């Protein structure tokens, strides 16, 4: 290779020389060469067959940094260098992939400026990583060197790859990095002049997009860190809201977003049912009260007259004209018990599952009496570790107990007894 011959001062087949090369620029750039060596060794591990080629690349770099000569062949390398400068080191993997594909395309297409130099895909990746650490310093040397070509922001575009690079560029721009492109202020025309490939289409393309790329990056360079911070704040706020939603639900299950939302949906539906039920109850109650009041009035009135007591005014039922069937359903779960209460009209069906420890039947039946529920049917017993019962009850006339009250009291009683009972596994009665 042309450049290779000119740099006859080293043996391309020894790794140590390569490292020396790396060390040389380090001297000028106050750079931690050990890092480079580490990187280099990792590369050698992956791409051992390309070591010699690696050295070539590094030779080129060496030359470029010194800025003694500029070759047409090197023109290809410059953009890669500068891209190096702007990207965060943590993203080199993805760049690897992209560059490898672009490099493959390049080696196929670029016969003009090639000068016999055809980098393999691996080479490019090798080429990049060591240079990452050069970032701030090498940019300085770049700008000050005479006759150094202006920097192109994104080297991919001179290959005329269509949509992929655009997406990629946007991705890269939105990624957090504090480095600014060294040649932000360079004129785009200079860039166009770089490529003497004779292919005007490619140059134009490069110029336009590089200009666009640069302005975009210029806008966002200062803002990317702020953007990152606001994004993080936004995420934190959102997570807090999810947690707040979780605390409102009575029996939350899993702690991930989808189940929080699912629980919230069920709870909202339950609350709507409860409110509906309560409204009906209140209406009925009010109706009943009015009617009884009216009856009293009539009684008093008809004490004087005889006989009109039984006749209720027909205008009255309009207000409590309630064909809607009172219905509600809800479930409550606690650590050791589950309660399911369904009410249709005046029939209440209660299902209770409770971890076996105490004789819950006793407490439950006491509670049911308290709640003015008339037991019609009971079925259940001991199943494995649990007691499971089904109660069919009717609400006594005149009582206006509602579903959530039943469920809450039940769970309360059962849990309290469970906690109060001595912790014995066998029933020691």
């Amino acid at each position, binding site marked *: 290779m042309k450049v290779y011959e000119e740099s006859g001062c080293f043996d391309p087949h020894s790794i140590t020389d390569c490292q020396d090369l790396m060390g040389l620029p380090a001297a000028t750039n106050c750079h931690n060469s050990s890092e480079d060596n580490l990187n280099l060794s990792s590369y050698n591990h992956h791409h051992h067959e390309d070591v010699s080629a690696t050295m070539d690349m590094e030779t080129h770099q060496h030359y470029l940094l010194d800025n003694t000569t500029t070759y047409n062949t090197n023109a290809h390398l410059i953009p890669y260098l500068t891209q190096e400068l702007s990207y965060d080191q943590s993203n080199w993997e993805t760049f690897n992939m992209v560059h490898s594909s672009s490099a493959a395309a390049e080696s196929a297409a670029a016969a003009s400026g090639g000068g016999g130099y055809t980098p393999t895909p691996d080479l490019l990746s090798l080429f990049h990583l060591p240079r990452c650490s050069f970032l701030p310093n090498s940019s300085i040397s770049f700008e000050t060197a005479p006759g150094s070509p202006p920097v192109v922001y994104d080297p991919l575009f001179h290959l005329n790859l269509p949509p992929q690079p655009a997406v990629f560029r946007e*991705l890269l721009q939105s990624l957090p990095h504090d480095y600014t492109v060294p040649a932000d202020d360079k004129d785009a025309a200079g860039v166009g002049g770089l490529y003497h490939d004779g292919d005007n289409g490619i140059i134009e393309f490069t110029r336009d997009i590089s200009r666009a790329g640069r302005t975009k990056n210029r806008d966002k360079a200062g803002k990317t860190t702020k953007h990152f911070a606001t994004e993080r704040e936004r995420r934190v706020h959102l997570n807090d809201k999810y947690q707040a939603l979780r605390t*409102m639900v009575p029996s939350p299950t899993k702690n991930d977003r989808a189940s929080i939302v699912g629980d*919230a949906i069920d709870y909202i539906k339950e609350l709507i049912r409860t409110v509906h039920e309560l409204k009906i109850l209140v209406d009925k109650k009010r109706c009943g009260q009015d009617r*009884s009041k009216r009856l009293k009035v009539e009684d008093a009135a008809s004490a004087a007259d005889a006989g009109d007591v039984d006749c209720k005014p027909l205008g009255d039922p309009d207000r409590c004209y309630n064909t809607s069937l009172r219905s509600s359903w809800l479930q409550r779960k606690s650590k050791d018990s589950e309660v399911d209460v369904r009410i249709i009209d005046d029939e209440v069906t209660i299902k209770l599952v409770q971890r076996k420890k105490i004789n819950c039947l006793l407490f439950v039946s006491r509670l049911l009496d308290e709640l003015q529920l008339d*037991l019609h049917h009971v079925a259940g017993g001991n199943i494995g570790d649990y007691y499971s019962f089904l109660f069919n009850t009717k609400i006594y006339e005149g009582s206006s107990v509602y579903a959530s009250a039943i469920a809450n009291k039940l769970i309360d009683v059962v849990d309290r007894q469970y906690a109060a009972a001595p912790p014995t596994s066998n029933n020691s009665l």
Partner: protein
Amino acid sequence: MEFLGSELNELCMRPSRGRPGRRRHGNNDDNFVSKNLHAERKRRKKLSDRLLALRSLVPIITNMNKATIIEDAITYIQELKKTSDDLSEELLEMEASSEGGKQMEMEADAAAEMEKCGIKEEVKVTYIDGNTLLIKIILQKKRGCFTRLIETMDYLGFEHSETSVTTFKGAMLFSSCVHGKFVDALMVEQTELLLLEMIRTMNGNTC
């Protein structure tokens, strides 16, 4: 951010196909990456479907983005809770101020009905081997009779393994399999007598 992730994934997938030396490896990675992609997409879809459902439930919506839908849901839940609390308080007040007491009539009827159908009160206790007894009782259905039954059983030290209660025409049939600690054949008679006694006392106090 999620969009970014998916784009990066897809970009990773493409170059691996273009490198001949790594094709085999690349194919496996493709499968894993695409399985992950599918799983991740499914998860995101699940979350967004549920968020949509939540949005449809809440009547007052301010903006249509993820953060505000959660906020709106929170406010709506609080509102509903407040409404239900108010209504239940109102109900409680109305309950306190109203009158009750129609139960007496029901129970008087119960006894009459039983006689009409010819159902007799009865206690039957059978010994099943081990510690188990089978108890069957027919009694007049009254308010709180079930509770008293259970209390008695508890007092006797029985633990219910299966219980079944049905009511018919003012009579209640109670049938239960119980375990006891010191149960043997001799106890059967005693238990029967005890339970009969209890029922009679219950009938004696009609309330």
